[in-house]
């Protein structure tokens, strides 16, 4: 675990307890009041992550049932309509109710601590953002009860997570399931935008003394980039949801081809949001890896300025690649060329990042703790995801494989192999900070290995079934097309993933009560969140910290050889 070096400078005074009016401290009413009325960035951050994990289990169960249906040919486990609802709810929930809140939660919890601030810039806006997100998410699940409406028609959205027109037109989507989908995304979109405003204002306006932009942890830098992407990308999503609402309720003709509207315009508008969204989801993964890899390699990050520049570059390029989701629609060759080229360009800054992480590890004293293992797996898996991404960027290749299981495999390697693995890394790394106890290492190792095997077993075969022509979103398939074995392997992988995840969930609960005490700085790390108590007091720091380098805790622990002499 490394030495517990003294970090006394930021903790001259013992933490004090702030008393507030309300029910008896420790009583159930009080806990409820604390959760509902809180504006504390740490509580809200954990609530975001907790809500995200609950929706993760729900959406994961839907995915498991999808895989059960597809395990063998001509299966009748799920009705076709139910299957459509499940993949729609699974996709929408994983992006908007799992990915987004967990990212927002991590930023909420860590950004103020890392920059030495006491809270977010707008604490009440922060609470508003959380509750509007939660309401929006529950609204979509409420569609199972409320959507049939007067028509007695289908419950729950079944139009796919990108809801291509004209599927969403009143004529083809009776009842209110699509309306719930629209309203839910509008509300969670508002939540995300408020969170983005808060992250930017916090980092720009509440950095502790000495923390110039060039000395911020890379995590904070990447969260700024993500927040700007949210501002620019989430609003177009809101815009096209408003248009769809107008179409469905007031008879507007935005996407009605019979009235001169355009179904392709929906695709453009959706992916103008949808592609930056991919980077909104993966950049936080980079952020986590950029914190964990240096600490467990015992070396500062390699090429800090280049890492920042590459992140900004990725964000910039991501705004101009959206139509690579639409090669199969039929665009001009000019359009195809432009979007293929811009998409290929993204590989350049991304490659730089991968080399910089490798450069950080090169010659370092690697410690294979659980967070580091997840980050190492992330590097390999994200590389595979990037390579299939480069393949799909070639328009003619995409014509062949668009909407096949190859695409499904590609983006699950991005979102599970990239994002989810780093989220697990982050949980193992920062759980001791948030709860004061270490997560159990043996259970962590079991979680890591079993889940990783399950993940590859599920998604690697989908590359092959996709290339053999299996289309996504079909509820069943005939035997003898060469897809049977691959699908069976995929479905068996789910069992491994479920076992791995149950170790994780059990570990979260068990360690909360029985885990080893963590102390302030269990990993011998360098950023400011480790300078305060675990869990941090409501005001984070007794005394506002002052930093001189990118690794303030290194400076404190090594007064003889501080970083600021070299930077």
């Amino acid at each position, binding site marked *: 675990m490394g030495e517990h070096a003294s970090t006394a400078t930021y903790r001259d005074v013992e933490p004090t307890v702030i008393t507030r009016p309300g029910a008896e401290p420790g009583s159930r009413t009080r806990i409820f009041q604390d959760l509902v009325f809180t504006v504390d960035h740490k509580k809200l951050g954990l609530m975001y992550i907790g809500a995200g994990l609950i929706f993760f289990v729900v959406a994961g169960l839907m995915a498991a049932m999808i895989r059960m249906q597809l395990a063998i040919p001509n299966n009748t486990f799920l009705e076709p309509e139910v299957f459509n609802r499940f993949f729609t709810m699974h996709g929408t929930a994983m992006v908007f109710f799992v990915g987004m809140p967990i990212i927002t939660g991590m930023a909420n919890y860590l950004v103020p601590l890392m920059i030495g601030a006491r809270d977010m*810039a707008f604490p009440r806006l922060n609470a508003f953002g959380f509750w509007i997100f939660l309401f929006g998410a529950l609204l979509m699940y409420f569609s199972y009860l409320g959507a049939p409406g007067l028509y007695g028609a289908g419950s729950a959205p079944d139009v796919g997570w990108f809801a291509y027109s004209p599927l969403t037109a009143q004529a083809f989507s009776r009842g209110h399931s699509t309306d719930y989908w629209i309203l839910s995304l509008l509300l969670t979109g508002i939540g995300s935008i408020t969170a983005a405003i808060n992250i930017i204002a916090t980092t720009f306006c509440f950095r502790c003394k000495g923390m110039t932009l060039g000395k911020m942890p890379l995590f904070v830098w990447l969260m700024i980039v993500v927040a700007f992407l949210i501002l620019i990308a989430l609003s177009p999503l809101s815009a096209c949801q408003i248009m769809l609402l107008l179409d469905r309720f007031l008879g507007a003709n935005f996407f009605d081809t019979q009235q001169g509207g355009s179904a392709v315009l929906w695709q453009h508008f959706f992916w103008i949001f949808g592609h930056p969204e991919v980077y909104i989801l993966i950049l936080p993964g980079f952020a986590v890896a950029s914190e964990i890899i240096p600490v467990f390699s015992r070396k500062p990050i390699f090429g800090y300025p280049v890492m920042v520049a590459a992140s900004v570059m990725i964000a910039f390029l991501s705004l101009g690649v959206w139509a690579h989701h639409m090669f199969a629609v039929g665009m001009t060759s000019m359009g195809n060329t432009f979007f293929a080229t811009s998409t290929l360009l993204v590989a350049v800054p991304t490659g730089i990042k991968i080399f910089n992480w490798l450069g950080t590890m090169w010659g370092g004293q690697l410690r294979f703790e659980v967070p580091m293992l997840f980050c190492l797996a992330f590097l390999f898996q994200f590389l595979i995801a990037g390579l299939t991404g480069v393949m799909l960027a070639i328009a003619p290749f995409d014509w062949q494989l668009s909407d096949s299981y190859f695409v499904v495999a590609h983006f699950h390697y991005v979102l599970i192999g990239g994002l989810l693995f780093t989220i697990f890394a982050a949980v193992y790394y920062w759980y001791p900070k948030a709860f004061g106890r270490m997560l159990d290492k043996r259970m962590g190792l079991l979680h890591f290995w079993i889940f990783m095997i399950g993940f590859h077993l599920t998604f690697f075969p989908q590359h092959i079934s996709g290339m053999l022509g299996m289309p996504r979103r079909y509820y069943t398939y005939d035997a003898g097309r060469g897809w049977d074995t691959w699908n069976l392997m995929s479905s068996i992988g789910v069992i491994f993933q479920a076992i791995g995840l149950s170790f994780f969930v059990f570990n979260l609960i068990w360690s909360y009560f029985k885990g080893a005490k963590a102390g302030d700085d269990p990993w011998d790390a360098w950023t400011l969140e480790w300078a305060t108590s675990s869990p941090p007091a409501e005001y984070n720091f007794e005394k506002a910290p002052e930093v001189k380098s990118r690794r303030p805790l290194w400076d404190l622990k090594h007064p003889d050889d501080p970083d600021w002499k070299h930077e």
Partner: protein
Amino acid sequence: MSTAAASDSDWKLPSPRKTGVICLLIAETALFSIFVVAYIYYIGRELNPPFPSEVLKLPILATICLLSSSGTIVMAEGALKKGAINGFRLWWGATIFLALVFLLFTAFEWRELIVEDGLYISTNVFGTTFYSLVGLHATHVVIGSLLLLSVLIFSFAGKLQKQHHEHVEMVSWYWHFVDAVWIVVFLVVYIIGR
């Protein structure tokens, strides 16, 4: 909400209020961009009358009202900074008046389009994009007017002091943004689209 560092004179950080409002306006710009692009994309694609060239009239007076309200709000801000609270109320009230006149012009324009020309949001893609873009802007004018009005109420309640000039400035930034959007809407809808 201020950290100890913020009070230190050699460690200057931007104002969170301004940063937040700038972020909000970036998001709003992205929102409007999509509606403007949709409008431009659908110019000339309506399959049935009424066509924009037949029914749209240049809203010159409305435009003058809205744009000059950006001037009156600057005057109001200047008065507040000097502590001239009555001057502030006068210019601020003038801004609200101009905003209401603008909304009145829009109301009459829409009444004419709906009642006399038979243009509904469902009539053709011109109706669809026109009502949604101009409507989205008008919604922003309404929200802005409510903000302006609440500041005026605060000032008459004696709650508005000289030191609140940054709060007031944020309202005026929003108002300038609404004006700037109108310039784009005017160009796209009434000049290019006609």
